C-alpha cells in the first residue's frame, strides 16, 4: 500500500504499525513525535496503531530555530 510519509509517497507493507515503520526507517522513538492524519500519536500507541492505505504520516524532531525560520509560507 502507499502512504504519504513526511509529504512524500512511500510504499509500505499493508497494515504496518507505527512502531514497525519507525524500526524499518531506523528511527529511534526517543526525540521524535509522530502524527497520523493530522492527529498526534501517543508514544505508547506506536505498537498498536496501524497505518492504512493512503494515510498521511509525519515524523518530526527538534531542529535549530529561534523565531520564525520559515522559507516558504503556505
Amino acid at each position: 500500500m502507499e502512504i504519504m510519509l513526511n509529504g512524500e509517497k512511500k510504499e509500505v507493507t499493508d497494515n504496518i504499525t507505527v512502531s514497525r515503520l519507525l524500526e524499518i526507517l531506523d528511527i529511534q522513538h526517543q526525540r521524535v513525535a509522530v502524527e497520523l492524519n493530522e492527529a498526534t500519536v501517543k508514544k505508547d500507541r506506536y505498537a498498536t496503531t496501524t497505518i492504512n492505505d493512503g494515510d498521511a504520516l509525519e515524523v518530526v524532531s527538534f531542529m535549530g530555530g529561534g523565531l520564525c525560520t520559515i522559507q516558504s509560507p503556505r
Partner: protein
Amino acid sequence: MKDDKLIIAGIEFHSRLWVGTGKYKDFPETKKAIEVSGTDVVTVSVRRVNIIDKNKENLLDYIDPKKYKILPNTAGCFTPKDAIRTAMLAAEAGISKLVKLEVIGDEKTLFPDNEATLEAAKVLVKEGLIVFPYTSDDPVMAKKLVDIGCPAVMPLAAPIGSGLGIRNPFNIRIIMETIKVPVVVDAGVGTASDVALAMELGCDAVLLNTAIAGAKDPIGMAEAMKYGVLGGRLAYKSGRIPKKLYATASSPLEGMIGS
C-alpha cells in the same frame, strides 16, 4: 541578586536571557554560543525528520535537555491549526510541556496574527501545555492571553530578526502594568544595550536568536548579551535616578579655592 528568581508556571528559570538555535554556522558553534550566554532556556523548532539521511546530527546531541530547558516553538506556522498540530507534536516528543506559540500573520513583517494566536492558545492551554505566546506589543492582547491561561507573554520588541531594539518601550511598560504574569521580550533585539533596556524597563526575560547568531562574532555577542541582561536587571533592581532637565553638582561646593 541571588534571590532574584524567575518562576513561571512553577518552573524556576535561572537565566533571564533565553536564546534560539537557528542561523548558526553549525551545531558546535550553536553549543558554544549557548554555553557562553549563560542561558538555561533554549528554543527549538519542530521539523520533519530527514528520512533519507538519518545519520544527520541531531541538535539535541549538542544541547543537553537535562542541562537546558527546551522551549519548542511553532515558528513558521501561519494558521492556528498548524500551530496546534506543531505544539502537540512537540509536547508528545516528551521533552517539554513548554511551547512558544507563534502564529505569523504577515510574511513580510513576520508580525504575529494575534487573533489566531489567541485561538490556538485557548486549545493548547486546555490540552495542558504551558503556553508562552509571541504577540504584538499590545496590552489588550496580552491581557486576553493571560485571561485564557498563558502563564507569561512574549511581546515583540521589533520585527523578528530586524535588530531594531525596543520600538515602543511605553507599550512594554503598560503591558507590565496591565498583567500580573512575567513579560518576556521576544524578537527584534539587536545588541547588548537593547537587552539591557528591556531589563531596565522591568521585563522578566528576553528571548533572542539572530542578534547572536548573525553577529560577526556570535560567541563574543553571546557573552555581551549575558552581561547586558545582568547589568540591565541589576540597574532595574537598584532603582535608577530620575531624569532631570538641569544639572545637579556631584562634588561639594564648600572648600573650593578662591572662595
